[in-house]
């Protein structure tokens, strides 16, 4: 077996090759690979004795799974209701503009950033909310969003 599939093999083993645990398996695989590469999904289907279509089906149904590579830094802007009415659209626009993301594009060409728009992080009291690499920032303005990105960019340049 090539090294590439080793993490997936371990995860399958930990779950007793139980196809009923497909969702938790894919969650762990995504943690290990940062996304769900097609070859790994085929490998999982094969090992679990289910069709690749079933695995792709689950992977594309749930918003949490990603089938394309993600950037090094994950920027999540909440667009739940509370954040929406407090102006999250302006923050999304500002981030897109700053990162030069086209409509529909999530990850920057240099794979440095991925922008995800999520529905409610449960911190609505702080709306609008933006999360930079798991650090939650509340009451964000478009200007503050740009500052936060600048900090990451600056740290990367070092």
């Amino acid at each position, binding site marked *: 077996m090539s090294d590439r599939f080793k993490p997936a093999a371990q995860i399958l083993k930990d779950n007793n090759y139980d196809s009923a645990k497909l969702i938790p398996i894919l969650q762990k695989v995504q943690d290990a690979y940062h996304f769900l590469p097609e070859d790994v999904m085929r490998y999982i289907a094969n090992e679990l004795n289910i069709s690749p279509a079933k695995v792709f089906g*689950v992977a594309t149904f749930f918003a949490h799974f990603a089938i394309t590579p993600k950037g090094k830094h994950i920027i999540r802007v909440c667009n739940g209701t509370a954040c929406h009415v407090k102006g999250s659209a302006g923050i999304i626009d500002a981030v897109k503009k700053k990162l030069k993301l086209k409509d529909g594009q999530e990850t920057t060409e240099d794979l440095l950033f991925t922008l995800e728009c999520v529905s*409610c992080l*449960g911190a*609505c009291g702080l709306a609008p909310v933006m999360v930079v690499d798991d650090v939650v920032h509340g009451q964000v303005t478009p200007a503050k969003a740009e500052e936060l990105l600048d900090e990451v960019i600056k740290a990367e340049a070092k």
Partner: protein
Amino acid sequence: MATKDIAKIAKDFNDAYKNIKHRIVICGGTGCIAGGSLDVYKAFQTEMEKRNLPCSVEVTKGCRENYLSLSGCRGFCAQGPLVSVGDIFYTKVKVADVPEIIEKTLLKGEVIDRLLYHNPANNQKSKTVADIPFYAKQQRILLADCGRINPEDINEYIAHGGYAQAKRIYLEMTPEQVCKEMIKSGLRGRGGGGFPTGKKWEFARIEPEGKKYVICNADEGDPGAFMDRSVMEGNPNAVLEGMMIAAHAIGADEGYIYVRMEYPLAIKRIRKAIEEAEALGILGENVFGSGKNFKINVMEGAGASVCGEETALIASVDGMPKVKPPFPAHSGLFGKPTVINNVETLATVAKIFEMGPENFAKIGPATSPGTKTFAVTGHIANTGLVEVPMGTTLRQVINDVAGGTTNSDGTVNPEAFKAAQIGGPSGGCLTKEHFDVPLDFDSLKSAGAMVGSGGLVVMNEKTCMVNVARFFLEFTKRESCGKCVPCREGTDQMLSLLTDICEGRGTMKTLETLEDLAKAVQKSSLCALGKTAPNPVLSTLKYFKDEYLAHVVEKRCPAGVCKALAKYEIDPAKCKGCGMCKRACPVQAITGAVGKPHVIDPKKCIKCGSCKSTCKFGAVKIGA
């Protein structure tokens, strides 16, 4: 394993607790953690060490006189991080404040004025929780212990009477009696549907099959609501105890908690509580020596909100969403009889038995008794969790408890209220005319609205209701599982009609089509996600027809939100003629001489907004 004696656990805890002179509670809910409360907690630890102050972080035999603990969400997240020292309640606490809090408040009992909650409405400061109108005007039953107890210490839950009801019920009551008592309490499901919980249990109880399941629905699919998250983070054992009682009532020996994975902290605390309960033999085999077994598994949802709908949820524990009937009480998880209840519903159960079902039934209106928790967000002075008796009016919730509607700059202005969206994407909007309708299942239904799950988003005049309807449709379209045509195609079509309206391409015909389509989707979708998806459209069409008309007839967005309809103007009184906007404009729509007010040519303007974000003097405005 035999269950440990909970009376002894409670006594040991209370004995140990007598050593404690000062308790410092730092809010460890998602909101406050986001504001840095864990660093504040650490700062307390280090500072106490530095000063050699005796401090414990656990209540155990021989614990020391200062006790430092985290709590779950106290429902006042916008004021976080929250810290209380005894009764004294501090808001927006930073790491830098910690030495002063120890020096003055802990050691000398002095109050630090600057950290007290300051009520913007009357300029008063409050020293304790009881003095703050936001708390004083609530009736906290479900949330009573959230924010008071340490959610990661099962012993404290037990010392507050926890698991005593489960024990009594397992040992002294028959399943039939439990169902009867629940029916007597009148509790109706808090997940949105309002189905009587006792009846739901009774249906499952009379099913003959051996294996049955209890599922706790912790998917909290309404984006912008966090009642369930707060309960799980703040008092996870209450959820477990409710599930145990439900299990006894229907004869189940296994339960699942289905939590959305966006709630890592809730998942962590629930898992910890399960571990602790298992270690004490409260969960597991032969619980309380009753001969019955009960175990609880945690499932993490992967971000599809349709899974909050009960049949889809069952399917997603099994594999993939599918369609009803049969209803879950008859054939649910793995084809077995299953009871699904919402987190809030389950967490209320032990409280009902503690106070007595008759007493619970006396709170609020007879047909919807008890209290309900609302997550009040949006343009409101005090964003947070509000627990009030059912039947409280919108006016009381918004103006009295939550401090009133705010302008977009945050200043309180009750007059600015426009609408409140209740129940999220499957809900509808309440307007000024609903201000005095009691918030309970039946009153709202007859007013053409609903209680929903408890998300209550307050919107001020600067909110465009067409945009709001479009926002919800965007959400439901994304969430539609695609199995049936009316919902899959219908949400897509409704969304593009709404987009047309927001972007100035709408006509009267568009409005008509939208309404017809909404009604068709409502009627013919297979599951409740599709059936309820048109609600925001229909309710905004009903109450804000004028606003839709302004968009289609006058091509105007009265709230100035829809970008494509915005009219950019320069206020000559504010314009300094610096020329920055002229340079920023991609289509040379702005003219003017240096030092003189500039003007925008509406025919050339493509409404990109660059001028507005460039102008340092706030001279560019969006006219309606």
